[in-house]
């Protein structure tokens, strides 16, 4: 742990200092060693079981307001690079890992993960029994907590407990507004390929407007890859704002926070989109708010789904896809109104993972077909969306 320090001789006979703590709202304290920036960060403590793609996860805006516990013990092995980024804006609030960060090993690495954490102001803690924490979350649900990182190892635990306990929590929180772009912009970058990196869409055949509730760049890349001109608009865009771009299709993005909170202003817009019969595709928060728009309900999950191994069954084909997921809220099955068909379900706990509006070119999934990180089994959904757009245009 903090003893293995390349620059100094290791002295195992002196006491080490806990340079970071994770303090939960109930007063539980986990000690460890600070990584990344110095300071305090508050959020909901969740766990993520993906073994690869920590950089993508940490830059996923859907993780805003969350402290990610990585269940895989070695995080940082491949360092950081400038490509595996899902946003340069706000994303995860902090990280909790088991083993110390190592030097990077990968031909694409630019430097050690710790440097990158510091440069982004991300605060983390290493040396935690992350499996114990994971069990805690599984049993008690995702708690609110504070990670504090201080070189001298001095922490005011009661104050940190109070800070964690008084954090309002994700329920009722509209985080989309904070992570969304403020002005519309165009997106042309396409998917990454070995050898050539990211490409560029120069001859788009259709125009998609993506409403940014916290969109992951890889979603935009997937759309551009399939021949779309992509215009990204803020979460607060009105239906008229969207229509001003004369879209062939509308995309409702992923994002953090409570769908009910963001839905207060987004749902009416989405309802107009549905009514317009313009092909519409929603992912994650976009999926949840589409459900709200047609009269369904969402609820906060006990521990959520976060990982890259989540099995989902496509109820229309019977096929199983392994998906990348990151959600703490879910659409409740019993609230689905007539005229809405459940298309996908989780094989882990049976929750609703996808739906479509009968008779309309409108559908959505709870999980992440854009992957990044995670398996790319569900990329077909983007093609399905493009097919709807093209059929409408034909």
């Amino acid at each position, binding site marked *: *742990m903090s*003893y*293995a320090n*390349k620059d100094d*001789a*290791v002295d*195992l*006979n002196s*006491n*080490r200092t806990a340079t970071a703590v994770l303090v939960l709202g109930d007063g539980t*304290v*986990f000690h460890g060693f600070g990584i990344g920036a110095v300071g305090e960060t508050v959020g909901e403590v969740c*766990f993520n*079981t*993906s*073994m690869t*793609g920590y950089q*993508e996860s940490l830059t996923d805006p859907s993780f805003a307001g969350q402290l990610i516990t990585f*269940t*895989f*013990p*070695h995080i940082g*092995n*491949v360092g950081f*690079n400038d*490509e*595996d980024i899902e946003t340069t804006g706000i994303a995860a609030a902090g990280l909790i890992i*088991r*083993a110390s960060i*190592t*030097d*990077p*090993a*990968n*031909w*694409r690495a630019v430097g050690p993960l710790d440097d990158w954490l510091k440069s982004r102001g991300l605060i983390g803690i290493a040396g*935690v*029994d*992350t*499996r*114990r924490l*994971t069990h805690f979350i*599984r049993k008690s649900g995702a708690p609110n907590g504070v990670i504090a990182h201080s070189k001298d190892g001095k922490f005011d635990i009661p104050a940190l407990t109070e800070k964690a306990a008084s954090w309002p929590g994700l329920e009722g929180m509209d985080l989309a507004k904070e992570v969304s772009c403020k002005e519309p912009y165009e997106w042309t970058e396409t998917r990454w390929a*070995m*050898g050539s990196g990211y490409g560029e869409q120069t001859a788009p055949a259709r125009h998609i407007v993506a409403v940014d509730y916290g969109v992951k760049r890889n979603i935009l890349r997937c759309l551009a890859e399939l021949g779309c001109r992509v215009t990204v608009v803020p979460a607060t865009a009105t239906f008229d704002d969207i229509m001003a771009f004369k879209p062939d299709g509308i995309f409702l993005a992923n994002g953090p926070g409570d769908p009910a909170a963001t839905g207060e202003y987004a749902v009416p817009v989405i309802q107009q989109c549905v009514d317009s019969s313009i092909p519409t595709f929603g992912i994650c928060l976009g999926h949840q708010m589409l459900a709200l728009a047609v009269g369904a309900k969402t609820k906060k999950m006990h521990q959520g789904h976060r*990982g*890259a*191994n*989540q*099995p989902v069954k496509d109820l229309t084909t019977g*096929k*199983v896809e*392994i998906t990348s997921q990151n959600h703490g809220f879910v659409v409740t099955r019993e609230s689905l109104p007539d005229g809405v068909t459940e298309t996908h379900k989780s*094989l*882990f706990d049976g929750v609703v993972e996808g739906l479509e509006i009968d008779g309309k070119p409108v559908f959505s999934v709870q999980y992440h077909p854009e*992957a990044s*990180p*995670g*398996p*790319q089994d569900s990329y077909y959904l983007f093609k399905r969306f493009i097919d709807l757009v093209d059929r409408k245009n034909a």
Partner: protein
Amino acid sequence: MPKRTDIHSIMIIGAGPIIIGQACEFDYSGTQACKALKEEGYRVILVNSNPATIMTDPGLADATYVEPITPEIVEKIIEKERPDAILPTMGGQTALNTALALAESGALDRHGVQLIGANREAIAKAEDRDQFRTAMLKIGLDMPASAVAHTLEEAWKVLEEVKLPCIIRPSFTLGGTGGGIAYNREEFEEIVTGGLDASPTTEVLVEESIVGWKEYEMEVIRDKADNCIIICSIENVDPMGVHTGDSITVAPALTLTDKEYQIMRNASIAVLREIGVETGGSNVQFAVNPENGRLIIIEMNPRVSRSSALASKATGFPIAKIAAKLAVGYTLDELDNDITGVTPASFEPTIDYVVTKIPRFTFEKFPGAEAKLGTAMKSVGEAMAIGRTFAESLQKALRSLETGLSGLNEQNFSGHGEQHVDKQRIQAILAQPTPERLLNIAQAFREGLTLEEIQTASKYEPWFLAQIESIVEMETAVRTGGIPTTKGGLLALKSMGFSDRRLADLADTREEHVLAARKKFGIEPVYKRIDTCAGEFPSQTPYMYSTYEGNEWDEAMCEAEPTDARKIVILGGGPNRIGQGIEFDYCCVHAAYALSEAGYETIMVNCNPETVSTDYDTSDRLYFEPLTVEDTLAIIRKEQSKGTLHGVIVQFGGQTPLKLAAGLEAAGVPILGTSPDAIDLAEDRERFQQLLHKLDLKQPENGIARSVSEAFDIAERIGYPVVVRPSYVLGGRGMEIVRDGDSLDRYMREAVIVSGDNPVLVDGYLQNAIEVDVDCLCDGKTVFVAGIMEHIEEAGIHSGDSACSLPPHTLPADIIDEIKRQTEALALALNVVGLMNVQFAVKGGVIYILEVNPRASRTVPFVAKSINYPIAKIAARVMAGESLASFNLEYRTLNHVTVKEAVFPFSRFPGVDVVLGPEMRSTGEVMGIDTNFGAAFLKSQIAAGVKLPTSGTVFVSVKDLDKEPIKDAVAKLIDLGFKVVSTGGTAKYLSDQGLAVTRVNKVMEGRPNIVDTMKNGDIALVFNTTEGAQALRDSYDIRHTALVMKTPYSTTVAGAYATVQAIEKIMTGTLEVKSLQSYS
């Protein structure tokens, strides 16, 4: 999709004997498949010639054929059993090749049998280099530049494109036998020639060398609905150039970004689809250029493999079981994940620990073979270890190997009298792929080489090097600072996987001192569960590993949750090696089954990922841990914290757990069965001699030498030849027969280090005696002599390397009765509770005791299958306290004969002499069963891969002592129509006896000589017995050529006689097949 109802009976083909490249992992897979298919209500027909397997237990399949796995014999079984389908993906390359041959000969169509799991086209597409390449290029995957050659001329042409260095891979061979890396034209010619010869289709692939690239494996499962999941990714620590079976590997892949990992994932799935693996598990291997990430596909196996076993144990996902169920039509989402009990099988396991596998080698058994690794597999076993970090799992794996390592032990680079070794020399050593490379790398750090220098030489991924470097840094801190005086310091060391013993060595103190320091700080391991899901769901299955978790401020979570049951701990056998293999795992598994039936909670401890014992459903609780006193005692203490520990079984796992007995007993742990003191009595020569004296039993003259001069005194007293060996070894390590003072002198100087603590045993050698192996059961009051096995080779050949017959095929009844009486006397005198094995030698009507081992022996499964009593199970229950009488065992007359034959890895170790001796070198065994000795022996030979001739020329060259004894065998062959050629002395003797013999030149006598004749394919059978160093050297070429030409040979007279009987059997009748269940 529900399971298929159009098929009712399914044949499973096993992998046959344990050989390098095909070990216990196929017992694991076959056993799981049998259980899974029976559970679904199918009639299961099993074929496997290996008696030491769990899958051939009569209860596992409906009809169990312990018969040779050849297309001819399997077709006979098909005719008899009329299965609807064959599942060929559970028995390694053997099963796949046999199924392919049956498909191609039309046998399957003739009998209306379909292949399930993998069809003929898929097998051919995956196995045939040309077809595979075409398929991969078609789906856009990169392959190394390469082409196939069928002749040396073609190969030269290919080389013009491919360039040196290049890799030569023969088609359809096991573990890459006969392949290699050529750096120059001379090597190229040599390897291509050998490779063409090794390939049954005379085909080699010459390909671009990607030596030094990163190597990965993906374990993939696919179902009928085309659902594909990755079970596990594996990264090789040894870069490309070392066979993956010989590489240190870790799971999951540790040095890939998600983007690269997903490319590999997509490619793996695309490969399965393109090859057409309809259902089941496959393994896909990749190489990645560390400079630019270029991904190349190396190969795929459309079947369950060694890596599947590793992946199953590493993740908790039972690949073979699931693959068997998918083969009968289920889809992944219809199957449950037993580990969590709440999720389906259709998800990708995710893990929250690191798994390290290290292969175990036995080059020391094959003098003459170079201890260098390459594309042909050489390792005979492997140990796997689990830790929360790479360092922890690596150091646990090192001590799991049981090669005397307690961690990254020091290596000595310097030769005699050198103080300093220069960097270049160390780098040259690191550039060599050898079994010690990992240790050499650690040593190089100690010698001051930088990570970059080590990386340049070894091509190891820098991430792994940095981890090794940090372990070495911690070692330095302990060397200078002693055992840490802070909790944090000691905990940091323990969580990097340092054993107490290693720390004691580094701090120059005693292990007890380290333990005391740990106790003071309250530093203990916790146990975490292997749950397939990284804790996302609660685990129903106590499959656990230890880790030093937490820190000095927070408590770590332990998930052991011991129960309040009455429990028994079974210590397993660790990694496979020559002398200790699957037989002992068989015994441990039986102990688990039996004690569970008797109502105990069974707790297994083992570190071998290939085995059935490390399946999570074999015992009630499983700890995947190193077998050391420290690691096992920690488990026992944890289990003792609740419920009652009835005791620990140490007699079933071979020497491994026995070595722990003293330490455990000293710690107050109850040992079940025969007391460790009685075991010591049997192993301690002096105490044992007194016992024999008391019982009035004979032993060859012997003595214990504690110095070189004592050895000479004893040898002269007894008279040469004598058998010499170090005490306390298994598998005849270091054992030799010496025939004169010079040889003894050489042995004492070169082969052993003799001292007061390490005496050398000197026994009189009984020339041409018959050796007999006996296994018995005893509860201290009554004895049941389960099996008396007469060796076919004479005494002096290691019992593990000898063929043997049950019942004895030549011994008279009075001798057999006397052997039985002596066995009973010994068992009672030693107060054996459980199993005991005795080795006797019979010469001139006199019975001598060679060795007694009051524990499970290698022959236990063979005896159990021969007499149809589950003797290992009964022994386990007797050890737990039941009386032997309660099992009502009776001596039944057998209406059949079983013959066990050993299988050797000589073809993997070029340069090694194949002459058998007192040091065990076989990797596995087969059993032949029939109504008479000749047929049973013949089956054992066929099963062992020997193709006996029915016509042609026999070459006979025997030592003087054997000339008279071999006469009748030669005469019989002449009667059967064979021609005989012999070298000078033998030719003269046989001619003098009136036999028609043609003389040929010895190798030294000018050309053409016998080796020329053999190379021309003019010799069908070789009888060659030799002794003495000079004669051995002179005749080496003969045996080596026989091996290369695959000419059957016998190096003993007794073996020659059995061979003649078998040939007679082939010529006079056809072999019948019969299931074990139908023998009574």
